[in-house]
């Protein structure tokens, strides 16, 4: 019997990040790139510091964004690992540690920042 | 030389060989079975069968109808007791394949769907779209992987049966990849090597269908039976010979000459209306439909293509949806190999050699006159096809008789307790003879001899025959065999994957089979089924020729032809009637 692969963990994080990127990305582009600058549906200060700070201070928004960013990190780590593999740089345990370790680090940072923002809101 | 011991050696990994192997493994898991094939099993020619397999399951159908269609289709040259066994087993075997996962096409309610084929009174053909043989073969191959007692020798080329004490006790084979010989010692051998359509140039068959199973048995004195009966499939692509299934006509396709006229109505398969109806027009039997083409061609009413004359198979009225559901591969084949999309234009078709009705003489259990040797499938003449095979009976045949032969061979192998013969000397002698071919410095190329054989057979033993051309063919074949014996010049002298050498060995077998066909044909002074003469023997002669032909091997000389009686149980010969009402139901139970 062949040993079970632990890839499902990373693949589902990768898949989650990819799916959210696909869903959230266009919406952010629409809001930040088009609607706000053109003044459609948002006030002139919609992206102002105060408004943004208040928004991020809400636990749901702050932590939600942190999770989103974490999944993006894992998506990127996984993609980089596999692209390197396709280019002939094969996934050694060390390389995996670097890729996924960076994602873990980035995710931890994102959560930390969210925590600070929420607590000091 | 490596020696491999097994109870049973099965030569050929197509449908018949695989079914025999599974049957033997199931009947006695303790038997060791060697399945030897010159190609990996799923490459075998069963894969190319398109239309389907016959088995009574439709509410309108009966076993009697299947019996009668088969016997009348075979122009009363069938072994009726064998046909009786056959029709009783078909549905069981096709159901068994369902249990093994074969993706049979279904009705909306999930039941088995069946369609008409030529010469059938009721729809009887189980099909898996138009890739029935492909699905049957892959289902059997994949199922065979469940049985640990089946040991495969893929890409091993068998050259000789080894007989000691009047009994087959071994087989000499070469591992194609290395060219190393191996002696397979055993208690019984099942030949499942397929037909010999590559005797002819224009044929629907794969390159591997070269008849060496027949040749191996024949060289050991086993008669080849009814070899004159060669089936031309009426609808193949001109040039390549690629098969366009009879299922295309079963689904409603029609045949048109160059004037757009459904010419079959002029050849005893009309009248046109009502259409569609069974056993009429395009659903006539293959011999009659192919012969009708020949007459149309003679009369100049065929269409010229770059690859010779043709008629049109028109499917346009079926519509794209039905064509894609029932005949997807036909559409793909026509698009790729004839640059014709049948949804939009008719496909040019002409007859090509498709099937060898005759073969190694054997009984209902596949047992040949040589003890320990069994034969099954197209290489065998078990007696169900007579003078003309009905479409769909051959896929059913390889299942029904594959099982029968597998079980019988297993039984025999269990009964034999004597220690196997040594066979070493014999095997080395045969090996030396085969290896000697690698050293021939004189001689002709394989392709030269092969294309001359094609020319002889096409011109002398074609769809329509006469004594003069058949005698010429016999003489020319004899001379050609002499030339072959004098030497085939090979560019390739190595042992490893030497396909030129193996092709030359095949050709030796094929030439013998061709000679058996030509001589059997010449000796049959009548017309029956696929054997149609135009030299005063234009009709069937039951007084003199309601009998099998047997071709006996006579060393380097031409074969000796004898005749043997046909078993008739409950259907005495009548006129074969298609088209106009053939009164289907009252015929089967008569004396």
């Amino acid at each position, binding site marked *: 019997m062949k040993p079970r692969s632990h890839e499902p963990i990373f693949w589902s994080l990768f898949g989650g990040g990819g799916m959210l990127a696909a869903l959230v990305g266009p919406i952010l582009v629409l809001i930040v790139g088009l609607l706000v600058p053109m003044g459609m549906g948002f006030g002139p200060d919609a992206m102002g510091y105060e408004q943004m700070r208040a928004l991020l201070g809400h636990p749901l928004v702050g932590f939600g964004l942190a999770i989103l960013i974490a999944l993006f990190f894992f998506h990127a780590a996984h993609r980089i690992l596999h692209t390197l593999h396709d280019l002939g740089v094969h996934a050694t345990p060390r390389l995996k540690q670097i890729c996924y370790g960076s994602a873990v680090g980035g995710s931890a940072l994102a959560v930390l920042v969210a925590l600070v923002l929420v607590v000091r809101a | 030389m490596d020696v491999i011991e097994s109870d049973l050696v099965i030569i050929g990994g197509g449908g018949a060989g695989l079914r025999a192997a599974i049957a033997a493994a199931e009947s006695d898991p303790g038997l060791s079975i060697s399945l030897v094939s010159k190609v990996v099993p799923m490459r075998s020619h069963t894969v190319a069968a398109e239309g389907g397999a016959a088995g009574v399951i439709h509410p309108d159908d009966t076993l009697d109808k299947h019996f009668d269609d088969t016997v009348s289709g075979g122009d009363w040259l069938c072994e009726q007791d064998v046909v009786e066994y056959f029709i009783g087993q078909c549905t069981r075997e096709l159901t068994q394949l369902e*249990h093994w996962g074969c993706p*049979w096409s279904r009705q909306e309610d999930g039941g088995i769907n069946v369609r008409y084929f030529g010469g059938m009174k009721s729809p009887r053909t189980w099909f898996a779209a138009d890739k029935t043989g492909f699905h049957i073969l892959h289902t059997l191959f994949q*199922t065979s992987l469940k049985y640990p007692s089946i040991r495969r020798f893929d890409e091993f080329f068998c050259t000789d049966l080894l007989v000691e004490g009047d009994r087959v006790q071994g087989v000499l084979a070469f591992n194609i990849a290395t060219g190393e010989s191996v002696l397979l010692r055993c208690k019984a051998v099942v030949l499942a090597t397929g037909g010999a359509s590559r005797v002819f140039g224009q044929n629907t068959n794969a390159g591997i269908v070269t008849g060496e199973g027949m040749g191996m048995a024949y060289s050991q004195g086993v008669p080849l039976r009814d070899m004159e009966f060669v089936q031309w499939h009426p609808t193949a692509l001109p040039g390549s010979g690629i098969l366009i299934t009879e299922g295309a006509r079963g689904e409603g396709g029609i045949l048109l000459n160059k004037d757009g006229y459904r010419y079959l109505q002029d050849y005893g398969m009309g009248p046109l209306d009502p259409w569609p109806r069974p056993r009429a027009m395009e659903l006539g039997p293959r011999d009659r439909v192919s012969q009708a083409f020949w007459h149309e061609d003679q009369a100049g009413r065929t269409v010229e293509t*770059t690859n010779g004359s043709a008629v049109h198979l028109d499917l346009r009225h079926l519509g794209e949806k039905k064509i894609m559901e029932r005949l997807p591969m036909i559409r793909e084949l026509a698009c790729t190999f004839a640059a014709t999309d049948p949804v939009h234009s008719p496909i040019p078709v002409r007859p090509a050699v498709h099937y060898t009705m005759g073969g190694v003489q054997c009984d209902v259990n596949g047992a040949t006159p040589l003890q320990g040797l069994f034969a099954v499938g197209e290489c065998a003449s078990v007696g169900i096809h007579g003078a003309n095979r009905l479409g769909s009976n051959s896929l059913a045949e390889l299942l029904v008789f594959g099982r029968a032969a597998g079980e019988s061979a297993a039984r025999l192998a269990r009964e034999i307790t004597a220690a196997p013969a040594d066979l070493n000397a014999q095997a080395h002698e045969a090996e030396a003879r085969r290896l000697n071919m690698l050293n021939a410095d004189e001689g002709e*190329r394989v392709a030269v001899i092969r294309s001359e054989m094609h020319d002889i057979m096409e011109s002398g033993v074609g769809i329509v025959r006469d004594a003069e051309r058949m005698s010429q063919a016999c003489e020319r074949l004899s001379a050609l065999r002499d030339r072959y014996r004098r030497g085939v010049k090979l560019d390739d002298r190595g042992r490893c*994957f030497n396909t030129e050498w193996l092709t030359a060995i095949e050709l030796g077998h094929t030439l013998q089979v061709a000679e058996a066909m030509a001589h059997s044909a010449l000796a049959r002074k009548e017309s029956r089924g696929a054997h149609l003469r135009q030299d005063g023997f234009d009709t069937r002669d039951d007084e003199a020729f309601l009998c099998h032909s047997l071709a006996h091997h006579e060393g380097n000389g031409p074969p000796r032809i004898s005749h043997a009686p046909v078993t008739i149980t409950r259907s005495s010969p009548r006129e074969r009637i298609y088209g106009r009402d053939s009164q289907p139901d009252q015929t089967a139970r008569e004396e």
Partner: protein
Amino acid sequence: MTQTRTIIIECLRFHPETDEAPYYQSYEVPFTAEMSVLEGLQYIKDHLDGTLTFRWSCRMAICGSCGCMVNNEPVLSCQTFLRDYHPSRIRVEPLAHFPILRDLTIDQTDFLAKLESVHPYLIPSADDDPGDQPRNQTPDQIQDYLGYAQCINCLLCYAACPQYGLNEAFTGPAALALLHRYNADSRDAGKAQRMDVINAEEGVWGCTLVGECSEVCPKHVDPARAINQNKIVSTQDYFLRFLKPRGRR
């Protein structure tokens, strides 16, 4: 008659008994519009050089014997036509990623072992006894697996798969598609026996969804889709196993 032209066919040659390394040999072959690459090779074998070695059989794209690389693309040589390359020369090589036995023939034993490893046969449930009747299966149920049952084992997908090229332990597109064919069959209950193959590193996780397998498949099997569906299956199995009661797999 169709006009005859000539084309240069450049073949990879390798004979293990005499050659240390593969080399290329060119042949000038007359051809007509309907001639396939396979027929070009046959012409060489019959008339120019009997030592050129390649596999073929049905010449109608159903036996799966004649796969090779033509100008670096994996194709069935029987349904690839010389006219589409003329007047350029063509280069014919054995299927990529496989060991060469001789000239254009490759060693397929690794694939056959993989095919066997996926339990490619119907495994009905223990209480399923159809007796002597065929089971029911509706046309819709057939559609769930029929596409995956079209594989002719020609190995073009293995030659196209960069992952198989990098790591030959990967079970590969055709074998995994065949595995899925049985899992997706309403009559089959053998999925549990096939989970090991799916779940392994060399199973579906060897695939990075390059998708070339589905691109080159001459029978439109879409192995990439089969594999990706089973990544979901494997992921569910990975996490849900913790929820299953003990004693059950």
